[in-house]
């Protein structure tokens, strides 16, 4: 039985006791899947499992507070579930986790770029076929094959958790671990190579086109403030309505700092950005910092205490300056 069929079987069994089960289905075109909310048995057959399941369905869980729901997760998504459980934002008894081994998902932006390089528009995609190591997209009647390694999401290239860290129903064979991960993601490496003034210019360049839709925030499973985010409140009034780069970047700093020690690097912030702003690099850098300072990784242990909510009398890796 395929992973997909096994998942469907398990979901059908559990569905009667659940408000709904969150997964993925086909979207408006061949290149896009979209979240699926299974409320009846007929919906189960819409379920998809594969490289186009780019979304992190954990983002929806806190909104079902008090109701018992099921969620289908990839390995990376499961870390968000763990983090939500750790922060008591969802209740373990109220969530049933379905999962299967994940062979990686595509980064639609990378696919778009590949198509553009071939003179095609992703907006004309007609067919997508994924077989193991190759993704083939047909657009405007022309098929373009691209190696999965070149269009996979950054997180997949360095994936430590292709299998869920926490699941109630894990079906099929576990997916193999990623071998020979790159030392650093390309975006982080590019920023690392820049001088400090160049980095300022970099953010000035990219944040300028931010439209402040807050998709980065709302797609983030850890942004639980959501409707009460300080970005849009007057009490407190952290950000003005002025659409300057300063204010826009400040929001990214708010988002990143609020995620320090909580971010599982699922990449939804950047994937969601309609303006293709590389906001994930900030979180990647911060995660690296948190790891260096506190030897901590978010979303792997429900019982862990986030590093910024605790302290040591003598810190191992913080050296205070002398005057």
């Amino acid at each position, binding site marked *: 039985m395929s992973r997909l069929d096994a998942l469907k079987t398990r979901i059908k069994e559990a569905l009667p006791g659940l408000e709904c089960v969150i997964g993925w289905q086909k979207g408006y075109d061949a290149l896009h899947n979209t979240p699926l909310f299974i409320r009846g048995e007929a919906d189960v057959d819409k379920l998809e499992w594969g490289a186009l399941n780019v979304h992190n369905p954990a983002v929806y869980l806190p909104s079902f507070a008090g109701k018992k729901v099921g969620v289908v997760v990839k390995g990376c998504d499961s870390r968000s579930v763990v983090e939500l459980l750790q922060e008591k934002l969802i209740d373990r008894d109220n969530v049933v986790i379905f999962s299967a081994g994940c062979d990686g998902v595509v980064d639609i932006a990378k696919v778009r770029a590949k198509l553009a390089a071939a003179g095609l528009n992703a907006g*004309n995609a007609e067919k997508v076929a994924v077989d193991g190591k190759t993704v083939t997209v047909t657009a405007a009647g022309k098929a373009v094959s691209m190696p999965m390694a070149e269009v996979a999401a950054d997180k997949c290239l360095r994936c430590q958790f292709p299998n869920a860290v926490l699941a109630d129903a894990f079906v099929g064979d576990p997916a193999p671990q990623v071998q020979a991960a790159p030392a650093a993601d390309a975006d982080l490496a590019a920023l690392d190579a820049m001088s400090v003034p160049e980095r300022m210019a970099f953010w000035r360049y990219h944040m300028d086109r931010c439209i402040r839709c807050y998709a980065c925030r709302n797609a983030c499973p850890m942004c639980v403030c959501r409707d009460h985010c300080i970005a849009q409140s007057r009490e407190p009034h952290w950000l003005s309505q002025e659409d300057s780069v300063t204010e826009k970047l400040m929001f990214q700093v708010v988002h990143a700092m609020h995620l320090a020690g909580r971010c599982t690097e699922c990449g939804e912030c950047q994937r969601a950005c309609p303006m293709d702003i590389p906001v994930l690099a900030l979180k990647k850098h911060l995660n690296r910092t948190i790891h260096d300072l506190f030897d901590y990784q978010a979303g792997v242990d429900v019982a862990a205490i986030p590093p910024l909510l605790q302290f040591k009398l003598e810190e191992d890796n913080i050296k205070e300056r002398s005057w």
Partner: protein
Amino acid sequence: MAAVKYIPREKLPEWLKALAAQSRVLVPVEEGGSVVFRQYDPARAPVFGSDATAPPKGAVFPACQELFSYAYGKEGEDNAPTLKLDPKTEAQPTVVFGSKPCGARGFLIFDRVYMGKKFPDPYYIAAREATVFVTMACATVENTCFCHWVGSGPADAAGSDVLLTPVEGGYTVEAVSEKGAKFLDNPALTDGAAKAAEAEAVKKASRDALGEAPDIASSPAALLSLFDDMEFWRDQSDKCVSCGACTYLCPTCYCFSITDEGTGTAGRRMRSWDACMHFQFTLEASGHNPRPTKAHRLKNRVGHKFSYYPTLHDGLIACCGCGRCVKSCPVSVDIREIVQNAVAKAKG
């Protein structure tokens, strides 16, 4: 209507430079993978091939605009309180060059609200009158395009002043409005009669590529009939994450918010885009929110475009079918699907 003119592709910079000498010229350029409208810079080649990620909405209706500055003070021996106001209504002459028809058509929806008799908006009127749209008809269409659903099309000139159509080697140029006619007076433009037929063929081809539009004429009534069907709206909005991408990138969304930004006793009154998908949009001072869930808010977004607005404005749908809300949505919420679902559901 004036005769069709023609401009070869390589002459475009010449025309743009001439225009830029007289006014602000905004053209679509690539920036970090997105296409946005920026002031024309000969060093940056405009991108006319694909539809801009963000429409040229900000050219007339900025994302954030200072309405006036204010300062409270004291004056004279008796310390009489004073308030100084400094309104900023003047608008800069602007040419929006290379927008797709849907980008310009959006302002038709604005015009009825901000240039109507009831509440004329001086800021909008000044900017609108100072802006000329030189629009580029679509030679190709995308999966998300649905302009033909809402009474528009890939070569729709409504809302534009000049219409360009890409043809072999260049573009045909047609004046659509009187304002636009003045813009054709440039040596780079030659007679385009010979290219007219080819241009018409391009227009037809892209229109044909869109295929047949479904009948959504009943959408105003259908959506109204589903107003209280919250289960329907829950199902439609399940996957929505309540961000503002659809709204801010929509050429027809015209809602705004007003805030005072200042420290101490002086500051500025700002008008900025608002998004009905955000919780804050209808949040009342008491803390009560008449649209507390994303289901309420999505219902409003779809209802406003396909029911409430057309009901008030002679059946004009407040959507130009550009498909940005579909394409840019992080979770691919598809407004076409919702409207069709509503129509189907209302039929029973």
